[in-house]
């Protein structure tokens, strides 16, 4: 089916999502080799001294500290929240993270712990991670998460529908979720590792933004590859194109597979040189990660003391 006409047949454009007609004529192709070459080139940026410390501190502020396990408990989430609010108890100048990211059942314990710290609660929803549930259940899931107090909803797109060419359905579903979650921020997970091509990543990015996503997010973290640098570059190029056409600034969240400060800084360089420095804020860029934080904390301390650190000095939460 022609996805363009499918998209135009979808119902009402949601609140403050701009019409996507300007982009219908040209989703645009992505050349994989050249995209990867550009990402590899940006990955070679050498970030040293004060610019490195600035970046590391920003990465902490951008972190959605995440636990998404079947074995998650209120106790586990409590520990995570403590870490989120005060990542390095030894160095109180290290800021809190942006949010904790949990399953809906753990929103309440998280809320109790985080209180008025300003650390937000992000909840995955819509039948995370597969999304292979009847639409009413997925929408209800998202609505419930919002009602439980999640500030941000990380929904998954229906990859089955997307890959079978039912783009209109995917669009419609995002719109419905968006309508169901009230004022909560919507992050739309594309699960790029299942989309197969960068062309699809670009198409899904544009589709999600048109449907009203506040953020587009690479992955659930359950599928490999997850947040690779070329995928992030590809999505950021789509974000930039939407910004240039409409003025709207959509956020970006790579999630899954980013474990080291070096990787995270590479992402920041891609952000800086693709969408521009305006995106170097937690309002527009997040890292979905769990083990990344400790590496960043170690690097911050190394930058400050000039001594290489041991993981033994950082808590595993």
């Amino acid at each position, binding site marked *: 089916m022609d996805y363009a006409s499918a998209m135009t047949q979808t119902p009402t454009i949601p609140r403050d999502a701009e019409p996507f007609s300007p982009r219908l004529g040209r989703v645009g192709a992505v*050349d*994989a*080799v*050249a995209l*990867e070459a550009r990402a590899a080139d940006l990955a070679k940026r050498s970030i040293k001294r004060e610019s490195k410390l600035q970046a590391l501190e920003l990465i902490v502020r951008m972190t959605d500290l995440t636990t998404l396990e079947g074995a998650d408990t209120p106790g586990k989430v409590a520990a995570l929240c403590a870490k989120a609010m005060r990542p390095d108890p030894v160095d109180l100048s290290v800021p809190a993270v942006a949010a904790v990211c949990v399953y809906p059942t753990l929103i309440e314990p998280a809320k109790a712990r985080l209180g008025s710290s300003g650390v937000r609660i992000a909840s995955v929803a819509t039948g995370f991670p597969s999304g292979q549930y009847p639409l009413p259940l997925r929408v209800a899931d998202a609505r419930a998460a919002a009602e439980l107090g999640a500030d941000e909803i990380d929904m998954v797109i229906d990859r089955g529908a997307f890959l079978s060419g039912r783009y209109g359905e995917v669009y419609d579903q995002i719109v419905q979720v968006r309508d169901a979650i009230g004022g909560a921020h919507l992050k739309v997970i594309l699960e790029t590792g299942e989309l197969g*091509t960068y062309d699809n990543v670009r198409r899904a990015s544009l589709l999600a933004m048109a449907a009203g996503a506040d953020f587009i997010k690479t992955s659930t973290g359950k599928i490999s590859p997850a947040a690779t640098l070329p995928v992030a570059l590809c999505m950021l190029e789509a974000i930039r194109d939407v910004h240039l056409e409409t003025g709207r600034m959509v956020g970006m969240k790579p999630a899954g597979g980013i474990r080291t400060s070096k990787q995270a800084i590479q992402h920041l360089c891609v952000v800086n040189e693709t969408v521009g420095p305006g995106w170097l804020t937690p309002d527009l860029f997040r890292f979905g990660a769990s083990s990344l934080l400790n590496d960043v904390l170690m690097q911050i301390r190394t930058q400050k003391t000039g001594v290489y650190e041991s993981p033994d000095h950082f808590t595993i939460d």
Partner: protein
Amino acid sequence: MSRLPVRKTYKLFIGGAFPRSESGRTYTVDGTNVARASRKDARDAVRAARGAFGTWSGMTAYNRGQVLYRLAEMMEARSADLAGVCSGRDEVDRSIDRVVWYAGWADKLAQVLGGSNPVAGPYFNFTVPEPTGVVAVIAPAEPALEGAVSRLLPALVSGNTVVAVASSEHPLAGIELAEAVATSDMPGGAVNILTGDRDELAPVLAGHMDVNAIDVTGAGEDTAELERLAAGNVKRVVRGQANGQSLWDIEPLLEMKTVWHPVGV
């Protein structure tokens, strides 16, 4: 009662037609008046060759091979006439066989001389031989027919178009050959043959800015002046076998083109 034969007028071969020299000049060889081409005739011939380049080089290699084979057929049919303007029937036979030999190369050149190159990266990279363009050929003085075939065919087989200066001493071989070409399905202008004074015409072609290569095999020992003139547009200057056949006579009139494309999803 004896019949008075109708004689043939020997003219130039330019753009598929047989014009007289625009200069109106002729010279006499063995009692026959032969057109003596001028600078302007050379210019017209280059123009015709340039015009035919797209057609001739754009044919499939198989098709070009068939046209050249057809040239051999036409030569065979005219073998008696050809024998009368060269050293004889043996030279004609060898010349025809040489044309057949070259005709068979048309659709093999790319396989033997081109190929894919294993570059260190996610790219498919291949090299293909292409014709250089318009080639000026100074045909050897002798053997008049076999020499002309030995130099014309290696240029033509890849798709070059040719402006040839026939042997000044034995120009009729060139014009008889032109008549075979004219009936061989070769596009007009792909082969142009000038008769006249080699020393007058060769420098004009060597200096012509729209000629891509010059074959000086028939231009004598000292070709320094022609080579100097050729530098004006970085012409390829070729000296090959005056009487022979080889893949390596074809190759100097080829350009190797290399194409890169990424391999990705």
